[in-house]
């Protein structure tokens, strides 16, 4: 396929086609089972826990305007993800990687595939957060748990794996160690949920890094892809186009995505996957390019949009139905 694309590029110049979309009926069922308002209830609980949690040591991490390094917590979110995934019947484990004081406690829950268990579809969100961290990233964790709840009642040909990555706010240490240990080498598709709860439908509410066009209205879910995951992004777009779930914008960074101008797209846990050559998408409301409460004490549940959260959960649930191939 890549050879064909190269030949196409060199010889004639053309627009690469989107992959064909499979029958959506079975996958659509998953989206319909998302419970309205459930993600917001989870955000409220997670945010309250973050606010009350002890803070992580911050030696060596100087405080900056967008980086209140001494306000980071993760204890309750790790426990909540583990207990929830366990209660839903997932084979759950906490993988501790690294050394004190920067041990990353990644929480992993797995739902083995029926006949292609070695092919893994991974859904991830980071569990550490500054202050209450409603949008960043209780929103991602809440959607992950809601999708896990929906998926727990179904069977899939491929394995589904839900991961709460730790220490994303300390340089994506949790996901980097996870990927570098080879734990993602069986991943055929990864969806990384990074701030997915803030929407603003007014003009002038969406900003963007230089070179990235994200529109002027902050009401869309942005999907960041690279050369290895562009077909995944096309599939999500096609699903959303067919079912009209949430406004989407897809940004594709060329090659690995690790370039000067596309650095902002590598800021989350998708980065280690991209650098390892594993297909991964980051799903985001664009964080500080939209949300004025980014990494601030004001990042509270009441600033989020519950309908937007539900739409993201619906899209992710439907997408994993397609990617992991839910059995009818």
């Amino acid at each position, binding site marked *: 396929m890549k050879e064909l694309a190269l030949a196409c590029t060199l010889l004639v110049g053309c627009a690469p086609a989107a992959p064909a979309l499979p029958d959506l009926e079975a996958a659509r069922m998953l989206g319909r089972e998302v419970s309205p308002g459930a993600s917001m209830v989870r955000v409220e609980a997670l945010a309250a826990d973050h606010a009350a949690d002890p803070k992580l040591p911050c030696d060596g991490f100087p405080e900056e305007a967008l980086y209140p390094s001494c306000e980071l917590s993760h204890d309750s979110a790790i426990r909540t993800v583990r207990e929830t995934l366990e209660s839903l019947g997932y084979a759950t484990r906490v993988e501790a990687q690294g050394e004190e004081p920067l041990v990353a406690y990644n929480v992993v829950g797995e739902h083995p595939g029926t006949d292609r268990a070695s092919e893994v579809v991974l859904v991830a969100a980071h569990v550490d957060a500054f202050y209450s961290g409603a949008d960043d990233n209780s929103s991602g964790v809440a959607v992950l748990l809601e999708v896990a709840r929906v998926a727990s009642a179904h069977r899939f040909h491929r394995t589904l794996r839900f991961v709460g990555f730790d220490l994303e706010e300390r340089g994506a240490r949790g996901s980097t160690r996870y990927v570098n240990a080879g734990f993602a080498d069986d991943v055929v598709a990864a969806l990384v949920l990074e701030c997915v709860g803030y929407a603003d439908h007014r003009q002038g509410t969406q900003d963007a890094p230089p070179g990235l066009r994200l529109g002027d209205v902050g009401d869309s879910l942005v999907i960041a892809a690279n*050369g290895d995951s562009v077909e995944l992004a096309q599939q999500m777009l096609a699903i959303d186009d067919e079912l009209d779930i949430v406004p989407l914008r897809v940004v594709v*960074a060329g090659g690995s995505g690790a*370039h000067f101008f596309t650095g902002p797209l590598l800021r989350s846990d998708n980065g280690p996957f991209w650098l390892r050559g594993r297909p991964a998408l980051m799903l985001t409301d664009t964080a500080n390019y939209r949300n004025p409460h980014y990494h601030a004490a004001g990042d509270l549940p009441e600033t989020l949009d519950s309908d937007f959260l539900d739409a993201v959960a619906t899209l992710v649930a439907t997408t994993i139905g397609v990617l992991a191939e839910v059995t009818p």
Partner: protein
Amino acid sequence: MIPALLFAALNGPLTPAEPPRRLTLSPLFVQNAVLFTSDRVTAGGAGGGVGLELELDRRFLAQADVEVLLTLGNTVMSRVALGAQRPGTWSPAAFGTFGALFGDRVEFLTGDGRRPPIPTWALGLRVAALRFRLREGTVSLVEAGAGTDFGGGLWLELTIIQAGVRF
């Protein structure tokens, strides 16, 4: 290479001593930066490359070059240009250009998942105000160009230096 060419060119005799030749072919060395931006694509970068220049009657020019650009990934740019220059040592020139970018770029997909066409291209104009024609070759500094793909895309280019050697 380019500083050496610059030094040689600036120390060479002036053009009037040069025997008349109707058609000359010169290798070119180029360093520049290019940005293409549209609703579908951001592409370009900074880098350099090589090309050829054909000069007719010391007035008309045809150029083609291939360059490798970085910054937004690994990008290859191919340009062709047709233009005219003022005869003499100071030989400002203007070109009509066609540029195409291949390789890495930032894409913005449409709602149905279609990717933008490959290559990214534009037609445009380029002005070389600080271009000097000397016996051993030509040196041109700070050329500026702009173009469009006629679909809302804007092509901007800044050539830091372009040097050619005449044989």
